[in-house]
């Protein structure tokens, strides 16, 4: 390993041609001295020529072949090459501000009680279409509500001390083969090791991804299923409160659970007034979503909040179904694991490039 640097910025990419150029230019425009950091781009088997775009601004490009192993795997390969004492992970659709990385380094230098810091999304995040605005507003609601010390790490842009990252066991590339919850799980391990992870409300980045209803439902389905199957929802809900699909406060949860039980029991009795019952359910849902709807109204206006309300109920329905599916899968099949071939390669200890995903310690 050659001389160390203060910072290594790792960008994992997969078919990111549309946004990658802008993302790397934004990192290069950081107010850090040019010789104090390096940019490592790890290409997770792209087929759209993203590597060529990466070459225009990166210091090192890692080309992974095969079918793609996910950002957790790709970022781990980047860290193995990193020379920085701090490693920052920036998503391939996230624009950092000129001072984002330097301020992250500054906070880590000042505060020895934390080992990781993440930036939150700014209000300009997302494409201009309604669903993108809805989704980014929802995530921003969670970040602002629960900013401070929490388990969530790097939802788009985060930095961690390399030493702490390695001693925490790096990203779990064994179970998290898709871009889903790997940051939350890493944050949980960082906290579990007695290390602090800070979600800063002052550091902002812009997310560029364009969402549509299908993508949002797909994301919520994936998160909900994995949350229940791999992490255990109730445990993660306590550790990572910025999970915002269900915006219930803790005090309300028992009341809602009781109400849900009564409603379930009532489902077996012929309803005298079906409309009244449906209306009651809707009212309960709207009441429980009041905090997020209030946030929408303040951020985007009353009209936006009104249109968002039914979409949020749809998203919650998908999330509830995903959680139930995840629970069933967990108890029937167990935790997520790679395919049989990968497991066999890992068992044998086959040494190949790209390496076989590693089992968590």
């Amino acid at each position, binding site marked *: *390993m*050659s001389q160390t640097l203060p910072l290594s910025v790792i960008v994992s990419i997969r078919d990111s041609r549309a946004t990658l150029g802008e993302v790397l230019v934004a990192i290069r425009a950081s107010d850090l001295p040019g010789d104090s950091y390096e940019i490592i781009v790890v290409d997770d088997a792209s087929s759209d020529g993203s*590597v*060529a*775009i*990466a*070459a*225009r*601004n*990166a*210091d*090192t*490009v*890692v*080309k*992974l*072949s095969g079918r793609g192993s996910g950002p957790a795997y790709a970022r781990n390969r980047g860290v193995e*090459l990193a020379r920085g004492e701090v490693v920052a992970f920036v998503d391939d659709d996230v624009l950092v501000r000129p001072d984002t990385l330097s301020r992250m380094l500054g906070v880590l230098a000042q505060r020895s009680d934390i080992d990781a810091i993440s930036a939150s999304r700014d209000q300009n995040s997302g494409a201009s279409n309604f669903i993108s605005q809805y989704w980014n507003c929802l995530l921003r609601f969670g970040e602002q509500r629960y900013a401070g010390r929490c388990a969530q790490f790097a939802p788009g842009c985060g930095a961690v001390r390399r030493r702490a990252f390695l001693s925490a066991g790096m990203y779990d590339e064994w179970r998290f083969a898709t871009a889903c919850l790997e940051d939350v799980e890493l944050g949980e391990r960082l906290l579990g090791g007695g290390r602090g992870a800070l979600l800063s409300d002052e550091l902002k980045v812009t997310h560029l991804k364009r969402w549509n209803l299908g993508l949002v439902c797909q994301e919520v389905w994936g998160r909900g299923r994995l949350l229940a199957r791999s992490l255990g929802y109730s445990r993660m809900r306590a550790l990572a409160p910025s999970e915002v699909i269900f915006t219930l406060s803790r005090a309300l949860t028992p009341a809602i659970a009781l109400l849900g039980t009564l409603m379930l029991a009532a489902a077996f009795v012929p309803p005298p007034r079906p409309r009244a019952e449906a209306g009651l359910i809707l009212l309960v849902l709207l009441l429980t979503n009041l905090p997020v709807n209030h946030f929408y109204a303040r951020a985007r206006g009353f009209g936006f909040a009104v249109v968002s309300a039914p979409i949020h109920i749809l998203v919650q329905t998908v999330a509830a179904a995903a959680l139930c599916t995840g629970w069933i899968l967990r108890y029937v099949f167990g935790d997520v694991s790679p395919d049989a071939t990968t497991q066999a390669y890992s068992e044998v200890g086959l*040494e*190949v*490039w*790209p390496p076989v995903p590693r089992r968590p310690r």
Partner: protein
Amino acid sequence: MSSAGVDAILFQEPTSPPSLTADDAFGRSFVRQHERIGATSVTPEAVKGPRRTPRRSLIVVLPENHVVSPDVVSSRLAAEGDNELVDVILACAGQPHGLGALQRRVRDLQVLLAPAGTSKEDLREFAMSQAPGDIVTLLSGIPATG
């Protein structure tokens, strides 16, 4: 550019690179020179199939009027590990400076020549398309003084 013209350029002395016309298509206007001093370099075809370790490439980018110290390249090669197994590609725009010194220090040097005025980013992008490595390090030269 005619194919005869390209052949003629490939046989020129490496220290006196050709002057290419700016109206050539960008991709076609690059000229590749393989300088083999000693052992034959490994071709991409020779390493197809599973490998135990990643193949590494080092791209040195020299826009017009930029130079790179052979010492810097040597130290980067040393940082890459076993420098015998690193493919080194020099991508330069216009007349490269100090090519001979670099060739003496680097065992197998692949040279890509682009028309003068080609931007650093375009040089990097094209050199990347030629780099066979799984891990590719890019090193930029510094402006020449005087």
